[in-house]
């Protein structure tokens, strides 16, 4: 009976109820949509800059991160690799040796990051062969190199040309070498594209005079959410007087910070949206109760407890809001999924400024049921809170005054 009354009351003023429901729908869709875009952008950013480049977890010689010189590199050993590979959830390890060098061609000189990698393994992590825009990928015995497209442009280098590299090697050795350019790669992050030189691991070890040496071991695993766990596991199994496993959050704190502050400003915007919705709901429920004070007074007069009456109004608010939320979720899911696979591509100035920050100029959504549920739940709670004052006014209703209206 109570539910029946509530249900019919909702349809008593169809227009108003539809407006209320639509505003809840809009709130849910907008909230999930903006949050999904936000998290999607972060996800893409992390994936490009971290997942498909530095990896979520790396193992270094314990002092390397403070002072990234080859002298703080490590001597590879079978037992080290075995320990890492036998750690739970770890699926592989990529050995890298990296350091800065000066690159020159003709009259141009530029600081570069020389990165010695295992060609096959890295290809599956950073998908390097697909980033080649000219030339070919290398194998582990190659003496040739791959360079970033922006670097190639700056140094006016083409496939087949030779690049002169010069820098510090291991233990005070000078590193010098001339390397043929085997391919040009376009890295998604422009700051990397501007300075990267890839070399097969062996060639790099020779160039740096550090045979069997490495600076970083990139740990491969499937689920990025396991980052912290795997990091902890590694640190508990490795000899920490020598080695140290680091998560990407520790290695790139500025990125984490940027994401967090961006996230906060996004959430603040959402809070404004929530407030608007809350006032809207508050207004409708208040109007609904004000208009019906006489009816309510009559119902209390003939013997209905105020709490029961409040429950009916609560039902009304709940039915409308849940309807709005269910429809909102229903609309959000396909939208979020669509824009995950077909992200918004940005153009013009906006795209340029985003590229400057080392990101692709696209806005994908993150498909996360957690985001959708969280936003839906937040809207639900807000609508219930907004309905609280009108309910309170029922509990305080003066029957005589109500009847005399």
């Amino acid at each position: 009976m109570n539910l029946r009354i509530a249900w019919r009351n909702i349809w008593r003023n169809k227009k108003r109820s539809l407006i209320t429901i639509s505003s809840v729908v809009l709130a849910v869709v907008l909230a999930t949509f903006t949050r999904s875009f936000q998290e999607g952008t972060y996800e893409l950013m992390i994936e490009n800059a971290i997942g498909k480049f530095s990896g979520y977890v790396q193992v270094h010689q314990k002092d390397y991160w403070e002072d990234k010189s080859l002298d703080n590199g490590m001597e590879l050993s079978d037992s080290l690799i075995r320990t890492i590979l036998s750690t739970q959830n770890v699926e592989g390890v990529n050995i890298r040796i990296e350091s800065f060098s000066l690159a020159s061609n003709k009259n141009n000189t530029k600081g570069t990051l020389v990165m010695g990698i295992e060609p096959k393994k890295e290809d599956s992590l950073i998908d390097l062969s697909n980033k080649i825009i000219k030339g070919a990928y290398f194998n582990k015995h190659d003496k040739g190199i791959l360079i970033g497209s922006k670097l190639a442009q700056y140094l006016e280098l083409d496939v087949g040309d030779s690049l002169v590299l010069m820098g510090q090697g291991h233990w005070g050795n000078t590193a010098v070498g001339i390397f043929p350019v085997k391919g040009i790669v376009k890295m998604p992050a422009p700051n990397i594209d501007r300075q990267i030189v890839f070399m097969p691991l062996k060639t790099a070890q020779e160039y740096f005079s550090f045979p069997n040496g490495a600076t970083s071991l990139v740990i491969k695993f499937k689920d990025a959410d396991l980052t912290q766990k795997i990091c902890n596991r590694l640190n508990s199994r490795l000899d920490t007087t020598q080695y140290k496993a680091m998560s990407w959050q520790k290695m790139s704190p500025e990125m984490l910070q940027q994401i967090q502050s961006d996230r906060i400003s996004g959430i603040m915007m959402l809070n404004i949206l929530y407030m608007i919705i809350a006032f809207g709901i508050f207004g409708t429920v208040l109007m609904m109760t004000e208009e019906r004070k006489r009816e309510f007074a009559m119902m209390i007069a003939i013997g209905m407890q105020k709490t029961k009456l409040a429950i009916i109004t609560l039902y009304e608010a709940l039915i409308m809001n849940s309807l709005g939320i269910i429809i909102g979720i229903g609309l959000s899911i396909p939208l979020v999924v669509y824009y995950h696979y077909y992200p918004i591509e940005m153009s013009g100035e906006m795209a340029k400024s985003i590229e400057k920050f080392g990101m692709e100029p696209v806005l994908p959504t993150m498909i996360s049921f957690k985001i959708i549920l969280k936003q839906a739940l937040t809207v639900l709670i807000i609508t219930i809170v907004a309905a609280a004052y009108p309910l309170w006014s029922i509990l305080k209703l003066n029957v005589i005054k109500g009847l005399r209206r």
Partner: protein
Amino acid sequence: MSIIQIESLKKTYRETEVEVHAVNGIDLSFEAGEFAAIVGPSGSGKTTLLNLIGGLDSPTEGKIVINNTNISNLSASQIIDFRLWNIGFVFQAYNLIPVLTAKENVEFIMHLQGRKKQEREQRTKDLLTSVGLGNRLNSRPSQLSGGQQQRVAVARALASKPKFVLADEPTANLDSKSTENLLDIMEKLNREENITFIFSTHDARVVKKAHRVITIEDGKVVSDERK
């Protein structure tokens, strides 16, 4: 034994600077089976008196005892239940829940009492038939005339099996034909089923039908006649 006993009842409103003695010292008692009219000009205190008897308002002084219960001693929620089980109400207007049909409006009060569905349905049909609305069970209040709505209200008031029915100017918004019709139905229920009615009015034609006429002026009883 009387079902309602009123002793030195006073109600004073003090909303502005001036005090209004809406009920100013009333002693009355009602017996089961009465068909009593409270008569008086507008502002004489009829509504206030009926609200006090019905436990909708609390007296400034004096007491009201209904079936041995001093209703001033009941808590806010107890008095609501007391009304539900003991008193039937008919108001001047807006008696019904607009989103419910005639049948559902009558059933509603029995639902509050927690009566079984079968009993509710049977009793609703019987009551609406006895007020001449057996063919309008599924009409919404907005589809009924003013007189029909008041008859539904009477049926609803009786549905809870109250000790008595209070009706505050039940015919004030009705034309003379509907007024007569409603009074006839009330009188029939009083005669045949011994239902106690206490109603207020300032309509001479309604006064004529009453078996007892209590006249009040300025919150005081000025005459109390039985016919």
